[in-house]
């Protein structure tokens, strides 16, 4: 059903259309999620052996004792029965008990590890997005120059480099040789031996602070978008500065500032490494999108009007070239929770990637399923968010 031309009615019609679209997508998401769940479980169960094999190391355990362990872990039941029991528990919000961390609940392990992974990979994703977007923007504008070739070749080289080797090289150079950063890990034991709280508490507060600051900055930019151009820049930066100052002021008296700084110190090198590895993807995507946009008539019109280059590039071209890049960003953020097994291993960052790896190696089915469920849900929601964002970013896109 198409919306008519009368403004108010059209707006209501479009909102209704969006609502219907979102509802349809949510139903699809639920169905897709169930399929994903079943497929994941089947693939995991298809692996030979089970977690009880780890007890084969102790020959003094009799067969009866090992069977008792299998029963206690529920491994005596047939796979399909285990799956249905798992689904039933999942609906009740119970992700089960981890085999390797027995008897800790899966959700407790995820809540412990997720903030660390989120902090690392969201930071790296956002930084690499901005670097890539900026570089792609500039490269498209300065086609044919030496800078374009150097940056493109360098970026692609880093994009295709062997990640474990590159990570170790970064550690060797910046941590071991120059001593600027710690050699992996996410906290320094010497600093944290007498800490009054757990690292996860500080992680959570850091994440909240980052979220709150981001929201406030976004809100401030949104509110000031219609201000007079001459004063807008100064007011915006003043507001951002004030927000950051407030955030800093809240941290100072808490006594946790040095611990947060220690985490940030450890965070820098892996974020830098991940940014170098991944920025080229965004850069090339932005560049290609920009090149297409630069051929549009309205860009020619903007030039003819005598607008400055940076205004044409940033306000007109980049704004419209951003669509595929934002989609890519949203998907990248969704997969941030799954972390990176290799990165977390090289940098000794104990996050979700490491949990997934250990779960797969030891066949800790509940833990693997729990981690995959979170990743799956985020990925599916990311698709929905991307579709909704498209509608906001491009007024031409409307859903029936």
């Amino acid at each position: 059903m198409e919306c008519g031309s009368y403004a108010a009615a059209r707006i209501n019609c479009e909102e209704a259309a969006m609502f219907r679209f979102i509802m349809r997508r949510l139903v699809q998401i639920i169905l897709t999620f169930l399929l994903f769940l079943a497929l994941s479980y089947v693939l995991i169960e298809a692996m030979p052996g089970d977690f009880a094999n780890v007890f084969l190391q102790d020959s003094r355990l009799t067969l009866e004792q090992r069977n008792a362990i299998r029963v206690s872990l529920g491994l005596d039941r047939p796979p399909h029965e285990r799956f249905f029991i798992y689904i039933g528990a999942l609906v009740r919000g119970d992700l089960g008990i981890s085999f390797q961390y027995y008897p800790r609940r899966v959700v407790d392990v995820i809540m412990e590890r997720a903030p660390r992974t989120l902090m690392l990979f969201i930071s790296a994703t956002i930084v690499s997005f901005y670097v890539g977007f900026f570089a792609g923007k500039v490269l498209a504008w300065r086609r044919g120059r030496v800078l374009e070739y150097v940056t493109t070749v360098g970026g692609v080289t880093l994009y295709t480099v062997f990640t474990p080797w590159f990570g170790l090289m970064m550690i060797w150079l910046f941590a071991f040789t120059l001593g600027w950063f710690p050699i992996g890990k996410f906290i320094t034991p010497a600093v944290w031996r007498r800490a009054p709280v757990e690292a996860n508490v500080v992680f959570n507060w850091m994440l909240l602070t980052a979220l709150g600051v981001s929201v406030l900055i976004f809100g401030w930019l949104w509110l000031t978008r219609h201000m007079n151009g001459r004063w807008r820049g100064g007011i915006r930066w003043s507001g951002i500065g004030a927000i950051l100052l407030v955030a800093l002021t809240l941290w100072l008296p808490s006594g946790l500032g040095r611990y947060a700084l220690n985490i940030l110190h450890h965070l820098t090198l892996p974020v830098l490494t991940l940014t170098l590895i991944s920025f080229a993807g965004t850069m090339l995507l932005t560049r290609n999108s920009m090149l297409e946009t630069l051929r549009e008539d309205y860009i020619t019109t903007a030039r003819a009007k005598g607008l400055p280059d940076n205004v044409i590039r940033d306000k007109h071209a980049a704004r419209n070239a951003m669509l595929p890049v934002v989609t890519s960003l949203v998907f990248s953020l969704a997969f941030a929770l799954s972390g990176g097994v290799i990165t977390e291993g090289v940098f000794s960052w104990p996050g979700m990637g490491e949990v997934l790896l250990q779960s797969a190696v030891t066949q800790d089915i509940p833990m693997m399923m729990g981690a995959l469920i979170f990743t799956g849900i985020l990925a599916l929601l990311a698709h929905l968010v991307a579709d909704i964002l498209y509608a906001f970013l491009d007024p031409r896109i409307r859903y029936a």
Partner: protein
Amino acid sequence: MVSRQLMAVASLLALIALVMACTPAPQPDQAVVPTPTAAAGQPAEPTDAEDTPEPTMATEPTGPAADGSTRPATTGEPYRIGIFSDLTTTNYWSYLGPNTSTWNSYVLGPQAAALYGLADKTFALVPVIATDLPERPLVQEGEFFVSEIRMKEGITWTDGTPLTARDVAFTANTALQLRLTGNWGSIFDPTFLDRVEAVDDYTVRYYYRDDPGLAVHEYGALVGPIMSEAYWSPVVEQARTAVGGITPPAEKATEEEQEAYQRQLSEALNELYSHNPQDEPKIGPFTFARWERGAFAENTANDDYFFSGAEVTVFEEGYRDVKPGGYETVVGDTDGEPLVTYTVGPFVPAVIYTIYGDQNAALLALQQGEIDFMLNPSGLQRGLQTQIERQVGLNVIENPTNGFRYLSFNTRREPMGDRAFRQAVATLIDKEFVTQQILQGVASPIYSFIPQGNAFWYTDDVPKFGLHKDGTPMTREERVEAAIAILEEAGYSWEGGVRPTWDADNRQVVRGGTLVLPSGETMTELELLAPGPGYDPLRSTFAIWIEQYLNEFGIPVRANLTGFNIILERVNNQQDFDMFMLGWSLTIFPDYVRDFFHSDRAGLGDFNAGGFSNPEFDELADEIKVCKSFDECREISVRIQQVLAEELPYVVLFDTNIIEVYADYLQFPYTETLDGLQNLYGMPSIVTIE
């Protein structure tokens, strides 16, 4: 327009509120730990099942004083150790139960002590908390066999309360009554042990239903840990109530009833295993301080450790442990040159176990001085050894391991069930060539089922197929001829009557016909399951060479290099295999041979996957479980090794040394020991830092 803006901001605020509501509160747990008042002063294929040694009660010496003073100073820098996997628990019940892992043992091991332990280097049984060696024979009182152990007086828990016999009895009885599995079942064997009683504060009695052997008593219950009754009683009572409410199934219960009972039992035991042991009193040289999950764990020195300042001297056949003004324990022959002498500490204020995800990163940390030592059951990767040996400030050591890699046969299938066939295969495998030439000496060929490093139990007097009587390896030609002789005597032949021959000019074996079994059947292809090169390049290389040796001899074999779990699945859970290659990490007391080869362990899923059955061996294996003196047990051990070397249910192939590296400012009393320093948790209680 304004309403949209407001809606957007309101939505964002609601999101923030939701996130904050979901933020977990700071957990009041191990992270917030009061600083002990006297404290001062930072892989493989790790973690795979077969490379993980089971936790032992090998008494990790608790530390000597550098200046000879009775109370060693525990000031200065902490001992910083790198490990490669996080703990999964700090609950000792859980650690020896469902959460058995090497990494847990590294941190929790130094916190505990037992009535008895194993001496350094010789691994002889010695008294620790007990005053003397246990008496043999046990005294029979009615239907029970009883062993009475006297404890040293004056030992206190870290909370100041005395260690008494009630703690010892409480620990054992809890394991028995709650039917704890995992290592608890091996330590306090419910088949033999009925109960433990505290006669008085310092005397404890063990009551056995049958006369226990060394494996059950001396190397079982007596080296078991001791838990604080005062601390754990309330928790155990909760678990006991839950377990007490569950009725064990009748003897003839159905499988479903058995399984239902097991499920209820495990849920009840969760009360015990899930308890967070905050401020748990300990008697070991260290107490638990902090665990920052995924980052590090810390033990702090127990300044009231009873054994601090004791001087320990180990002899070839004896042991002496003297604490000035305290006690003196002498075992065996203490004349002659000592093997090692040290004083018990600890000499470091704390031990910090930092978790690294990658051995390369940990090595960089070691080189930079961020850590002092790396604990890894697999040791240092061989490729890193060469790099490290050139590094100033680091020491690299190499020690034999207590284990072996082997080739096993499915004796239920022909011709693997024929001893002559197995002997011929053993003769054809040139272990010396593969280990020294192909593998460049990174592995050592072995012939006995007990490694040479386990000196007391090892014997060299075993048949060694493929070696001359003087111990020199046979040539290829000699091996072929010897294997032909063995098989022909057993009735084998080759297709067309064409035997394999040795081509001296080209120095190779010329294949004849396919081997024909005594029944007249021509051999069909056998499958050899072995780990792939990504998992273990040593075993995969060996498998390829075994395939070649056997094929050129007329025994058709196909090496299937596959995943470790696939091998386990086919071998243990299906018993669908012809031959396979795996490995074992072993204990000091060699009763494991019974678990590996006794005919009653040949059921589906059990350890005798090859189905080996030999009445003479079964009898010897039963005897080693119940032998009651060291001499008697050793005699049996020697005979067992000879029988196994003749029967060859396995062809033991090789083992590798463990390589370790540490900062040269660490001073250990000794560095040569079976399974390396990692087997002694890095010796945190006797190491000094200069």
